[in-house]
């Protein structure tokens, strides 16, 4: 993507086949840009909640030990 060094297109997922423009050399803003974090990011907080939910029944049956 070296030819788009001055453009945000250089890191966009659509760059190879984007039909919006043929001039991808100096794009500084695009509402169709795929944000890197949005593509595959699962917030860690969500993982924690999921883990808690799975273990919840087991926890209920456990005895509470106070130190």
């Amino acid at each position: 993507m070296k030819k788009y060094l001055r453009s945000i297109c250089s890191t966009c997922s659509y760059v190879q086949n984007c039909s919006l423009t043929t001039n991808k050399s100096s794009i500084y803003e695009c509402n169709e840009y795929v944000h890197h974090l949005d593509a595959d990011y699962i917030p860690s907080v969500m993982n924690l909640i999921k883990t808690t939910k799975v273990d919840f029944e087991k926890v209920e049956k456990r005895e509470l030990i106070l130190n």
Partner: protein
Amino acid sequence: MTTRVLKQKKVHKQGMLDNVMRQFDHAAEIIDLNPNIRKILEVTNNELVVHFPVRMDNGEVEVFTGYRVQHNNSLGPYKGGLRYHPTVDIDAARALAMWMTWKTSLAGLPYGGAKGGIQLDPTKYSNSELERITRRFTYALGDNIGPELDIPAPDVNTNAQTMAWILDTYMSTKSPAERSTNMHVVTGKPVGAGGSEGRDRATGYGVSLTIKFWAENKKIALKDKKFIVQGFGNVGYWAAHFLEKQGAVMTAVQDAYGSIVNESGISVEQLFEYSQANKGSILGFKDSSAIDITNFFGLDCDIIIPAALGNQVTAEIAPQIKAALIAEGANGPTDVEAEEILLEKGIDIIPDILCNSGGVIGSYFEWLQNRNGEIWQLDEVMQKLEKKLRESFSKVSELSEERNVDMRTAAFIIAIERLEETYIQRGIFP
């Protein structure tokens, strides 16, 4: 105020900065802007460059370069996005910061303009690395940002999650008693972390509102008016959604995958559901046919909404345009030569600085809610947005008629005159 203008060396500016300066110069000449104030607005207040180390997943340490350019704060705290991209540098940040000053001024908000980011290719880093980079950058910025000083927002490759990391890091550097009073250090947060209802649709709703106000001014009913949209992302979709509610008919859409057309109308909701189920692509939607990219803006319609990217309406395309209105949902979609042709043809243009300002107004509402400890309902947010945008639109429209200038020039005049007034009233310290 007495003035003495020093002859300055002509500095060659490129690309974005050149465009922003050209628009500013044009408006400044029309209003005969005070030369001293012109000197102030032509340069940025502060430019911060930080180098900071971050430990990578493999144990190695990498040093990153981050920027924050604060253009002007005469109307209130600096406001602007943070982007993560290899193209981030001081020149790009300067231009975008200056652009934010005009935008917030026109919208009548108590904000100035800023922009910044980190020079990196986000695709090369894991999410946990990006989180550490964000947190370390926030720490490096320190008290150069703050809820009453400089309020960052999402931009390219940064999103609500990034803002939540910045908020959490910034708050952690404060004493426990102060922490909750700093929620408004960033906007564009997730709703659960202090974000605002309606922020997702604010820009697109704003675009549809400015079209509605334009139609009211022209005494035109939007019912059955045909519109076409370039970009079916957050801005394009919501603009189309609200226009359809007003009775207008979407006849063509273009996104990164291609363009579709149906003269009888395309259902916005059905297309949205289809694209969601089709990895974001609109291609293959029922009762529509694909068209050639070069003809898109030449399609027979009443309203064109370029809601994707800049420089789309060019001098080559402009003569083919049949629409009565271009509503600039994206930033800079119409180039200077094309604009001259369009205005000559009697085609109206709602300029980007006004048309897509719903986004920054939405951010202002989020900031206000955090600042005042309030949570507004969606309908309240939408109502306030309409009121604010109507005020901006009326001012631009009235000034455009009064001074016989196009709407873009009128918008810049209003933005710059508001700043000029502030400087004249307050004077220059000492």
